């Protein structure tokens, strides 16, 4: 079967410190991965590499068969990332932020798609407020809406439950399962291990940027 992720001895250095060290693993397309590890173990760094927001210092990373650096143009439409940095324009409203993405993606009828997504994430009442005035959870919801619009083949979720209220957490779980049903590989980094294990097939535990077997 095709591979969603294929990491061949990848390492990532910041300054003089290795955030990821010689990591090798594979993930079959359609299967989902749970990423765990202590604070600072390299989860966010790994997700950013997969999302092509940054590239390995050494080693080769292939996502959906594409080389993450050399073939990034072909790869980018296939991956979506929700991370600590929200990528929102603070001075645009929620609707404007989403519409912008929709137009870049060439979505047909952006207006109705955007309203639909905002409604789904419970932001419709605040659609025209600039993101600067949003609470932490509302920002997270907007980031999730953007991910849904992109309908990625590989969805990268970095602590998606953080800042969400209980209803939002339940909804997020539903969304993850829905994505999986559509054949999307979800890579989920979270500290809520049980919850994560319920939602995924495999697990990668990092310690100091290295793959270890969780105890």
């Amino acid at each position, binding site marked *: 079967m095709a591979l969603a992720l294929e990491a061949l001895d990848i*390492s990532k*250095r*910041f*300054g*003089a410190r*290795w955030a990821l*060290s*010689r990591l090798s693993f594979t993930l079959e397309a359609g299967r989902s991965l749970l990423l765990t590890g202590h604070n600072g173990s390299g989860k966010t760094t790994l997700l950013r590499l997969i999302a092509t927001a940054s590239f390995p*210092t*050494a080693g080769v990373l292939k996502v959906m068969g594409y080389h993450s650096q050399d073939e990034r143009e072909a790869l980018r439409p296939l991956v979506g990332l929700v991370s600590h940095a929200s990528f929102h324009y603070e001075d645009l409203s929620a609707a404007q932020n989403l519409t912008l993405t929709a137009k870049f993606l060439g979505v047909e009828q952006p207006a109705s798609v955007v309203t639909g997504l905002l409604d789904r994430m419970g932001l419709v009442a605040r659609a025209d407020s600039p993101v600067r005035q949003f609470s932490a959870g509302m920002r997270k919801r907007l980031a999730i809406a953007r991910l849904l619009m992109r309908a990625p083949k590989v969805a990268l979720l970095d602590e998606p439950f953080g800042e969400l209220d209980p209803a939002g957490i339940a909804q997020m779980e539903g969304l993850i399962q829905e994505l999986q049903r559509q054949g999307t590989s979800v890579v989920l980094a979270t500290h809520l291990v049980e919850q994560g294990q319920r939602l995924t097939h495999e697990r990668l535990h990092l*310690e*100091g*940027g*290295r793959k*270890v077997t969780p105890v």
Partner: protein
Amino acid sequence: MTPILPLVVLALVVAAIVGHVAVPAVRPWAWKAVGALGAAMLVSLWYFGLYWAPPEQFMSDVGRILYVHVPHVWMALLAFTLNVGCAVAYLMKKSWVTDALAESAAEVGVYFGAVGVMMGSIWARPTWGVWWDWDPRLISTTVMLLAYVGYLALRSFTEDPERRATWSAAAAILSYVSLPIVWFSVRWWNSLHQVQSNPSTVDKPMVAVLRWGAVTMLCFLFVFIVKRYEIARSRQTAAMELPPLEAPRAEVA
């Protein structure tokens, strides 16, 4: 001066530096040999420039500073050309070698340029009567140096090596645009400063001494860049090695 000559010199310098970088066998001694040659030539340049060459037609003995002023500025231009070459090479194919070489070339270039400008300024005092004048050549040269100081500042303010390399390569290319302007400024804006002259209009001995000076400075340019390159590389390699495959085992009490 034929337009092809600077290119030939550039090719020679690049070949020499690449040879030095690529062939480990020559590394221990080649730079010493060139350095020694440079030192010897410097001593003789002293004699040739100060005694042997005839005094300059209009400036008499003051004009003799020409033999070091001009080579210095030439070397700076040469080093910046090397720098931009490395920058382009880096952007086409990432390599720590070209990054390090670009860094050393820029730094050495700023050194030669600064000394050259200082000499020009010293020269200007007796000939033009001022330390400095509002002359396109002087300003464009200084501004070019400032551009490269900015380049070096960008390098030192960026911690991440990859970012530093890419960003500074971009800055190198944009800064290089000022170089042809330095060269042509004397023509575009009518200036006090000497327009490039032609060997045929200048006294044979003067041309000879000038060229002697240029070769002397070339030796130094080579040595400086090569040594600075080694420093840059040694700073890099500390961080270049991959981490070990197995995690270092924790101390067991």
